[in-house]
């Protein structure tokens, strides 16, 4: 291989690819990236076995070829070089890196690793694909991703569930204690479903792939998504990403969405958010529990910690029902309040023990469900 590439482009391609290489994996080969020059393009591929990414860029290819090297090391070298063209040339099992800037005369040689043991990363969608607007996709992911379970033993909950029903695209995440659900009419996101968009039973997409999308800044607003039996393919700009879907049964979330609730209060989102933030300064971090005392016209947010003391703050709410106390993990409430796009928030509930729902009064298609904690302050 013998190619000449622009430094900035090369470093962007590499850092994108390198972001998913696994440093802690049991397979050392996966800390490397595959560099390929062909058809006047440079392809950089990396994989952590769950997610694979292939980033392409236009370069001047003199000789086609490929090599597997440490992505992190190559990136560090490139970052140190001046902003001009860089020569990447293979010499048997070595990669020669040289800046074509006449002001410096430096040469780097990176040892390649066995090409054969690098996993095949299949990034071409086989089957149908659909195109969604990058910003819409991103905003949907952002509204649910914080509810994903961190607990590897609840494997099916470590990703975002996606499905199509009633002409809507739905994304759901839950850790078993709270749940976030966002849905958009297919017509609103400019997609027509021919029945093959997403497999009928829905899919669970792992967090890594989705966080990548959140981190990335799009040039072209179109994102193509396609599915095979157990993989999701996502294409945007010059990036092709593939991720294994999470196998497992996502819980029947529709069953737990409370309906016909009569009790609810309405509160200003900002006010509620700041009160919880302030009060939670003295929360016992082991339990993260705050208490909401809901009273006609006002609510007291309070916490008590055995080791630190306590805090309480009263805020106005719209409510005319009976007094009730509900305890919950303040973080669950903070995280969902941050994502609600509405000045006023509606919280409905049944009693101190059953799930509460949190919605924006002016926001359609976004719902959070939080299971309370036991009250024994």
């Amino acid at each position, binding site marked *: 291989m013998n190619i000449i590439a622009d430094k900035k482009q090369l470093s962007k391609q590499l850092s994108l690819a390198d972001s998913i290489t696994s440093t802690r994996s*049991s397979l050392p080969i996966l800390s490397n990236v595959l560099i390929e020059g062909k058809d006047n393009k440079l392809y950089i591929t990396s994989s952590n076995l769950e997610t694979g990414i292939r980033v392409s860029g236009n370069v001047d290819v003199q000789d086609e070829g490929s090599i597997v090297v440490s992505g992190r090391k190559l990136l560090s070298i490139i970052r140190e070089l001046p902003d001009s063209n860089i020569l990447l040339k293979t010499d048997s099992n070595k990669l020669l890196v040289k800046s074509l800037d006449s002001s410096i005369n430096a040469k780097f040689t990176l040892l390649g690793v066995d090409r054969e043991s690098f996993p095949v990363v299949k990034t071409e969608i086989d089957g149908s694909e659909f195109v969604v607007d990058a910003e819409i996709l991103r905003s949907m992911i952002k509204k649910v991703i914080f509810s994903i379970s*961190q*607990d590897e*033993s*609840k494997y099916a909950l470590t990703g975002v569930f996606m499905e199509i029903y009633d002409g809507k695209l739905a994304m759901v995440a*839950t850790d*078993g*204690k*709270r*749940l976030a659900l966002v849905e958009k009419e297919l017509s609103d996101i400019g997609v027509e479903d021919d029945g093959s968009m997403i497999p009928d039973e829905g899919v669970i997409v792992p967090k890594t792939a989705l966080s990548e999308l959140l981190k990335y800044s799009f040039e072209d607003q179109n994102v193509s998504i396609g599915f095979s039996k157990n993989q999701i393919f996502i294409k945007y700009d010059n990036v092709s990403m593939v991720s294994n879907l999470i196998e497992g049964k996502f*819980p029947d979330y529709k069953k*737990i969405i409370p309906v016909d609730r009569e009790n609810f209060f309405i509160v200003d989102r900002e006010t509620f958010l700041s009160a919880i933030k302030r009060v939670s300064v003295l929360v016992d971090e*082991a*339990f993260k*529990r705050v208490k909401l005392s809901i009273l006609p016209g006002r609510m007291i947010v309070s916490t008590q910690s055995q080791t*630190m*003391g306590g805090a309480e703050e009263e805020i106005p709410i719209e409510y005319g029902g009976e007094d009730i106390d509900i*305890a919950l*993990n303040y973080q669950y409430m903070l995280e969902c309040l941050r994502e609600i796009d509405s000045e006023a928030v509606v919280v409905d509930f049944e009693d101190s*023990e059953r*799930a509460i729902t949190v919605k924006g009064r002016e926001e359609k298609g976004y719902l959070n*469900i939080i*299971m*309370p*904690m*036991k009250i*024994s302050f």
Partner: protein
Amino acid sequence: MLLKTMKSRLILHIDMDAFFASIEQFDNPDFRGKPVVVGADPKGGKGRGVVSTASYEARKFGIHSAMPISKAYRLCPDALYVRPRMRRYVEVSKRIMEILSEFSPLIEQVSIDEAFLDCTGTERLFGNPVDIGKKIKGRIFKELGLKSSIGIASSKSVAKILSDLSKPDGLLYCEPGKEKELLSQLDIKYLWGAGEKTVQILRKHGFNKIGDIAESDGKELIRIFGVSGKKLWELANGIDDREVVNIRVRKSIGREITFQEDVDDLETLEKTILYLVDRIAYSMAEEGIMGKTVTLKIRFEDFTTFTRSKTLNRYTDFVEDIKNVAVEKLHEFNIDKERKRVRLLGVSVSNLIFKGTDGEYLSGLQRELFVPEGDEKEKVQKVLHAMKKQFGDIVKRAIFINGEDHNDYN
């Protein structure tokens, strides 16, 4: 609550003198009267590791706990250097706690050789406070041949300070109401709860005696230390209403096995993990504790030993959870591929919490949205534990029925 504040409490702090070293001297009459150092192997001065306990004879040479063993060796090469025998020390410790329990049911074991005892209201049974202390010291010495130091006061912190001051083989009592007076002349290093760092800072601010702290208006302390500044001021004034809590402080709970013959097949190793975890989970249920961190310990045939831990994001006492982590860690060693032979395998759970006061697990405060998947398995675990309790070790998981019996240590 009301009663307690009205009536002064009677709290004893019992601290064993040079515990490990004294046991060695008791068990080996030849060691008596000689400097004994329990700890790492000094290897003629090249040894690594530290001193665990030094006998009083060894302390005369300047040897103390936590000192590098090589330094101890330089100070006194002729001392008797012995490796710790933890099982023996734990056994003795248990016996001491049993003796203490004859004097009051309210015992808080702080460490292997130290405990608080709340004897409030036992004077009619055992006599005045000093008599109680003497009786306890006598019982321990008569039965185990070990010396102890005891502090007696109306609060934990003063009792602790007194036992410290009375060492070795001492007994000190502070009459209720005289706490402040007693503390005032003591150097601040004796203040319980003030570590080395805190003491340094205090000295920098001109506090040298505990009395200096007690006399201050407390504001400066709060400015320097925040909330804990208030605590320091209270302690310096002999105010400490912490109760003697009837729990044993345990840092971890674990089991390990040394195989009769080194093992290299993954299936046997995984089965062994389940066997160990079953036992750990049983003990956890018995003691009412849950843990967050799971550690796998593995020793290969060449005696290289590794530990790998993972901390879960919640507390558990559930066999499946603990086993899954241990197995995951086991797989990181590539035993199959690299054909490594394993000599010892151990699992432990740390980062423990105890059952809440309301009888619920603290982590159980959070309600679940869905019926947890593990529910069935959890029921199985409960039944298994109940059966084990009733029938003992003949209750086994099916996969162990035809298996060889393991040697279960500690």
